[in-house]
């Protein structure tokens, strides 16, 4: 499975051997609308014609209102699992899930296995 080097705002962005896009935000980042646009474009470029599920690591990274609006648009991503552990992660994820819900089905997980299992469930691949 192809893998892209991490660029710009990401600690890592690649497609793993399971066909899941893995996006790891650089720590200490505050995701603005502009960064969100950049991320969506990078993911779409990475996917090309394909549509894939995505695992986002680093959920404690806060998002602005504009960024959440960008993630609310259609993209090449079929499902999004947000992986975090702390109560801060959950707070940020809840905002993403309920205040500005993304276009693709999105859930918050504290365990990577559970996240991958949900992502790779039937219908997750495009």
């Amino acid at each position, binding site marked *: 499975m192809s893998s892209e080097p991490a660029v710009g705002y990401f600690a890592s962005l690649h497609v793993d051997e399971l066909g899941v896009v893995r996006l790891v935000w650089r720590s200490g980042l505050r995701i603005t609308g502009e960064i969100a646009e950049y991320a969506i474009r990078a993911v779409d470029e990475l996917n090309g014609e394909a549509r894939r599920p995505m695992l986002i690591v680093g959920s404690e990274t806060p998002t*602005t209102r504009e960024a959440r609006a960008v993630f609310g648009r259609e993209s090449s991503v079929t499902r999004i699992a947000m992986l975090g552990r702390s*109560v801060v992660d959950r*707070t940020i994820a809840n*905002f993403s899930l309920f*205040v500005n819900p993304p276009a693709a089905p999105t859930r918050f997980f504290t365990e990577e296995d559970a996240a991958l299992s949900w992502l790779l469930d039937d219908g997750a691949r495009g």
Partner: protein
Amino acid sequence: MTAHAGEDLARRLDELAGFVVELAAGRLDARLDPSHESDEIDAIVVGLNMLAEELQGLTHDLEGRVVERTRELADAHAALELLAHSDPLTGLANRTLLGQRLRQVEQAGTVPAVLVLDLDGFKAINDSFGHEVGDELLVAVAERLRGLVRDTDTVARLGGDEFAILVQDATPDQALDIAERIRTALAAPVVVQGRSCWVSASVGVRLGTSGGASTANFLRDADTAMYLAKSRARGGVSVFAPAMRREAQARTRLADELRTALATGQLVVLYQPIVDLETGRVAAVEALARWRHPERGFLTPDMFLSVAEDTGLITALDMWVLETAAAQVARWRADLLGDQPFSVHVNVSPVELRAPGFVDGIVARTRRHGLRPQDVTLEITEHRLLGEDAATREALEGLREAQVGVAIDDFGTGSSSLGYARRAFVDEVKIDRSLVSDLDTDDQQMRVTAAILVMAHAFDLTPIAEGVQTESEAHALRTLGCRLGQGFFWSRPVPASELEDQLRTRNA
């Protein structure tokens, strides 16, 4: 928990409490940085930060929408206001706005002047070139008028081809100067869709008086003055005087009376013979309407014709004359004339020519009385046969096809009908009395009449000399090659019974 950790927690809770107080005070731009603990307090901080941002964003959106909606409402209000107060075609003020401005001027106590103008010749342009050209012409005229006045004055379109200008504060000289400038501004042709349209305007002026006098009747008064200007000559200016109002009222009364007269048989037809200058035979008669007015006595058409035309009664009047005369000529044919060439001349207004079904109506009325279409000749006054509009041309062609004769009345006093004459739409021309009088004694008059007769013959038209008063004039006309004449020398217009004697003698 260590003492240090306890102090740290207390400090963070203090900061959080301060942050909440700030937010509660409405400072939605306040933010608190979370620690690196990622604990419950940080969750509250991050949550509050995001909530504050969301709230701030929503408030901003809401304010934006309120501003937008307010602007849209203001725009809609302005558009409605404009619609209610402006003429959609030209963008000028309409009658409502003009009325409002007049009242404002009245309250301000200044001396206003109102000018009402009506375009001469607009109908002909509309009829000839179509409404699109007519509309563009109105827009162009509106532009010129707007350029003549100050921003404080109001130019309005009252409807059709009628405009008004309210001058806020004007001396009589200034108001008349504007009237003059209107005439000058309209003197140059308006080019619409590559066509040069020549229009002029008849202008009525109502001058104000000082001291905030009532302006309620200004528009009506200016209108009255405008109608007077229009009745005199194209492109004239007339200043309102109270006597005009009385005259206008008199015209309204006369129109009512004429309506009654038509219905109650107060109108009669008199006949004036048209005589063959060679043989003395009566070749035709002209049927002329007279009004036996119950109070004012015997009225000639010059006293009621313009009222009839303004009110549209002219059609009913002319058709009544045609029917009456056709019935009379049919009786003469049966009793006296047999098959000999004889026709009846009836006057019609050029306005009637343009009415749909005009030709069919004439033919049907003629046949109803047993006459043939060629027994009837319609006389149309030269100076009123204006414009080369399609409807007039069509009617003239239709009359030609139906073999109804057409004569131009008062020939030699205008110029516009030469075009029709040249293209064989006309059979006869009636040479105006002003060219016939003193023909026998005035050499110049003789030369002019000779030239007109040459021209008539060149167009293959039969000339009829009008207003022949003496044997000597009749002789001179005969010498010049004029075959037919009409005038007091032979007979005044007389009732049918009186004409019968002449027919018996002359046409025996």
